[in-house]
């Protein structure tokens, strides 16, 4: 049984933190399953999975925070760590081969050649664990620990939309041009976020992702 800590995130929200010092895939599966269960609860307005944690926003007019607290505890108690359902999606990546890019930094960190870095990144099966920070951004777990380069101390101010990036043990893709502390190892034309779509985020939590080298 994983320890959970629940805290108030304002009067109408609660944060469930199930994290231990290292990321746990089974805990994340449970977080996603709890989010899916509570997402259907009439008193819950939003259930937003984070990385080994979950934020819920509830209807403060109809329900006391103590009720919502119980919902969270109950849902956590009942949830399993079974892998949540999800589609398998392949993202074509133009990996950067020139060594004056972030690739150079990643290679030095990992002590690997370009080909080895690409192989490690492309051979892993990732899972969409959380959506957030910027519109459509996904936090992907499943990155090889050899590529778990820590984030930059000072974020780069503008990393281009479509940049395929890694940082802090996660993988991701920039849905728009924005600052980030992660490192870029390629780019894709894949549209992660399109505000003209009914469901603007291409990915859903629980989806599996594979990066495929595009030539």
């Amino acid at each position, binding site marked *: 049984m994983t320890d959970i*800590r629940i*805290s*108030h*995130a*304002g*009067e*109408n*929200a609660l*944060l469930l*933190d199930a*994290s231990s*010092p290292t*990321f746990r895939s089974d805990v994340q599966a449970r977080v996603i399953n709890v989010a899916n269960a509570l997402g259907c609860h009439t008193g819950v*307005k*939003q*259930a*937003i*999975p*984070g*990385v*080994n*944690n*979950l*934020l819920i*926003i509830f209807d*403060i*007019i109809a329900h*006391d*925070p103590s009720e919502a607290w119980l919902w969270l505890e109950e849902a956590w108690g009942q949830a399993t760590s079974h892998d949540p359902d999800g589609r398998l999606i392949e993202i074509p990546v133009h990996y950067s081969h020139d060594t004056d890019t972030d690739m150079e930094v990643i290679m030095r960190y990992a002590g690997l050649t370009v080909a080895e870095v690409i192989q490690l990144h492309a051979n892993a099966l990732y899972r969409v664990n*959380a*959506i*957030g*920070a*910027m*519109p*459509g*951004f996904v*936090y992907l777990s499943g990155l090889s620990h050899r590529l778990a380069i820590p984030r930059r101390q000072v974020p780069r101010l503008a990393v281009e939309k479509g940049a395929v990036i890694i940082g802090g043990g996660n993988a991701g893709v920039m*849905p*728009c041009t*924005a600052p980030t502390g992660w490192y870029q190892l390629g780019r894709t034309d894949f549209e992660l*976020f399109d*505000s003209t779509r009914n*469901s*603007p*985020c291409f990915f859903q939590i629980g989806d599996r992702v594979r990066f495929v080298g595009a030539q």
Partner: protein
Amino acid sequence: MIEVLTSSAHNTIQDFGRPEAMVSGISRGGAMDQTALVLGNLLLGNSPDTAGIEVAFFPFRLRFLEDRSFSLTGARCSAFLDTLSLPSDWAITAKAGQTLTCKALEKGCRTYICFEGGLDVPVVFGARATDLKAALGGYHGRGLQCFDQIPCGPRTITLPAGGYGLASPPSLPEENAVTVRVLPAAEYNDFAEESRACFLSQPWRITPNANRTGYRLEGTPLLRTSGRELFSHGIMPGTVQVPPSGQPIIQLADANTMGGYPKIATVVQNDLRLLAQSPVGTSVFFRTIDINDAVQCQRDTTRELRDFAETLSALRGSLLPWRQKQ
């Protein structure tokens, strides 16, 4: 239809934002001072969440291309309809061709201009609010510029000649200081005892790094005793984060939906309007509130505004015959 004559990128169309879209990584957004927007709309018989203009940068001018009632709420500014000086928290009907000028701020930070029938821009993910970061909603996803022409919804009401206004508008923060109520957040107890005391006692100055995304504050740095790195997690507007520098950041309407910095507290939703109306240089004082009191306060406000909407619509009816007799 209205036409913008003078504006800045900081002046945007806002409503209640997108509280249901955080799961897609879209900020809640919406009016920084939601109460002011609600009151402005109620004066015009609009639904409380109707889209209006949040004016954060002055001067702001627009021309009415048709007869249209409008209201001014929120921050107090010197405002004119052509040459007629307008009181704050006032609703009045403009004639086609008249110009509204919001010249300069007198008290507060953000003035709201609401329009009878609302601003009729496309609804994106359930809202008309402008999201500058995602460049969506509002008028082409950006701040208002000179020559922008914005259509309004159907006209619905007749106002007394000369207009009418709020007798007792919500108070604006007093010069240079504001007190907001907070609930302790997840990492509250990770901070040294002196830092927690310091957080609740010293004034925190709002630095120039303050906008719809958040306010960076300045004071004696806060020390966290645990160095535990946090995983990314959902954050609410009102969250007071403490990055390694020890200088707090209050996340506001356009904040990222996720963050990783430790959180010492969360400002209650009711008091976000006070921050919205506090200019750079203001000293912010934090005071803790019991969770049950915070909930009660939120429910009371909701009920008061609902009651006020009813009173107002009854009152408008009684004002009109008086107008016709004149």
